[in-house]
């Protein structure tokens, strides 16, 4: 049983990487007071563009950078509409997701060799880094040996934590999300920060898409993300807008994913459809737990100005 647990954790970490990246990005965006529901569409579009660039250039780094770039362009559109034009954040985000879903499907059929399809092609992908002599135990080694994007993502957790609690810009960011009027009065540029962290958040979502198509499930199929963008948004709520709790959540959801495949591989009699429902049902379950827990403590962790446009008038 212990071995099974170790194996699940080993599979949970790479499965959780894209969730963690997207959730960390959304934490930054939402801490500035902007709700970006376009994550799912951004992840899809970035995934297909990253894969296409990596496939044609045979350069993984270029693919990853493309993912971040696509994420920042799409989230710039979200920032422009919601921050500058004061559109409804929920509807705008949904529109970006639908737009991204269509765009990714289109690009997936056009960016292949000679303007053809990308589906089913094999391109370069990130390998797990092996550390010779690290540990004699192969199960522990399986946990420690991950791809470079996963290591970098794990490194981002303390970086963003420190940023939000110790660095002036991070504190300004939180002030903008809690009380933009007060922050403005203190000389913080609300608009600039909201733009900046919506774009940075979107580029992290773009990296999440790149991790899917270049590392976790290398290649492109339509609807590759399978709702991971939405689960990442739920993770932000679960994590109470806190990066280290997002790590816990990502591993938890990664485990559910891993468990699902493990049970399937073990030849369980449970239908694959019901196993497939696990992540979504767990998301609802986790939202119930965290909401009830917060309301029992009579507090809310959500940034107070989340979803509210700001203008000086």
């Amino acid at each position: 049983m212990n071995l099974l647990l170790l194996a699940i954790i080993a599979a949970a970490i790479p499965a959780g990487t894209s969730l963690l990246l997207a959730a960390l990005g959304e934490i930054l965006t939402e801490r500035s007071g902007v709700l970006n529901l376009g994550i799912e569409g951004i992840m899809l579009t970035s995934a297909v563009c990253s894969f296409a660039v990596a496939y044609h250039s045979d350069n993984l780094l270029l693919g990853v950078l493309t993912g971040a770039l696509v994420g920042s362009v799409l989230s710039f559109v979200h920032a422009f509409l919601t921050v500058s034009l004061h559109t409804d954040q929920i509807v705008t985000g949904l529109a970006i997701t639908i737009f991204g879903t269509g765009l990714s499907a289109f690009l997936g059929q056009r960016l292949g060799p000679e303007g053809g399809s990308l589906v089913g092609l094999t391109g370069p992908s990130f390998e797990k880094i092996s550390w010779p002599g690290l540990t004699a135990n192969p199960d522990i080694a399986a946990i420690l040996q991950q791809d470079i994007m996963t290591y970098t993502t794990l490194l981002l957790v303390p970086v963003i934590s420190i940023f939000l609690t110790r660095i002036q810009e991070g504190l300004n960011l939180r002030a903008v999300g809690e009380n933009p009027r007060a922050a403005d009065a203190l000389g913080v540029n609300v608009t600039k920060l909201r733009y900046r962290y919506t774009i940075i958040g979107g580029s992290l979502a773009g990296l999440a898409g790149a991790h899917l198509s270049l590392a976790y499930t290398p290649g492109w199929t339509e609807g590759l993300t399978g709702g991971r963008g939405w689960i990442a948004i739920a993770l932000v709520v679960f994590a109470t807008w806190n990066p280290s709790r997002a790590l816990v959540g990502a591993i938890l959801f990664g485990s559910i994913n891993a468990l699902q495949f493990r049970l399937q591989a073990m030849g369980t009699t449970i239908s694959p459809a019901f196993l497939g429902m696990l992540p979504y049902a767990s998301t609802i379950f986790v939202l119930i737990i965290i909401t009830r827990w917060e309301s029992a403590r009579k507090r809310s962790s959500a940034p107070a100005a989340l979803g509210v446009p700001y203008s000086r008038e």
Partner: protein
Amino acid sequence: MLITLEKRLERPGYLSALVTTVSMIGAFLIGAILLLLLGANPITTYHAMFVGSLGNKGSVIDTLVKATPLMLTTLAVLAAFKMRFWNIGAEGQLAVGAIGASGVALFWAQSLPDPLIIPVMMVAAIAAAAIWGLVPALLKIWGISELLTTLMTNYIAILWVEHLYTGPWKDPKGFGFPGSAQFSDPAWLPYITGRLHIGVVFAVIAAFALWFFLSFTKWGYEVTVIGENPKTARYAGINIHRNILIIMLVSAGLAGLAGMTEVAGIAHRLQKGVTAGYGYQAIMIAWLAKLNPWAALFVSVLFAALLVGGDQLQITAGLPSSVALILQGTILLTVLGGEILTDYKVVIHRRATV
């Protein structure tokens, strides 16, 4: 010269319609630029889409057939949005409605008198979807945001439909084809002309009913007040919890009806493609229609034309049909952005007068 935005002191009635129209034209221009960037000729693309969707009687019928589930799901989410209850789950509710209707057609139709089969399928679809929608509504009353719960129920419902038509409900005589057995004739929705089934009539009746109830009844008034200002609603003694339950029963029920018209009007079996993203497009249509049921019908036809035109594009121009989704998204984003012009006006000053 200096360009500034000034808040409008008065808003003429025609302004909103004018801004929307200009934004839509803008959307097609932006769409044209996107198409150019994607390596497609915008003029031939638009021409092929227009001819394919509205060019002759057959294609108009195709467009209306496609518009039917869009109309019903749009009315579904529109009712909920009126209360600012974010039901993003119409896609899944449509799927569950399809399950309810198919269940009746496949397993109960033999023991029912023929004229009763369609009404029972409708009731089953509406009831199944309403019960499905009740889960996020009850959770909302318990404080859990409906935005994510309704969304998650989509994925669960779609997996459930797939499970049924590839597993227990699969046609044993279907040569391994993933789908249920075909419904018997009395379970088919009657046709008006060609492929156009009477589902579109259901949609128009639903639009009328929704418009009537929202505009002229106490319930509609309560829904509007809750949507505009929940605090006022609470002070006025409106029972918000009860209204959440009612609006979700209505909303999910309408989406469920869309599932019924899809299986009983087009596929005549439960099979792949019953959930084709209508529930998500409905969100965009409802917003573009400014939550007006009548406008929703027209925008549904426009969006259906884009979809049918997109399918034609695949055949005639070899372009992926997803062009339609890209254009739909662009239209909504442009119209959303354009709305600022209904609140503000652009003023151009000569430098000397500033």
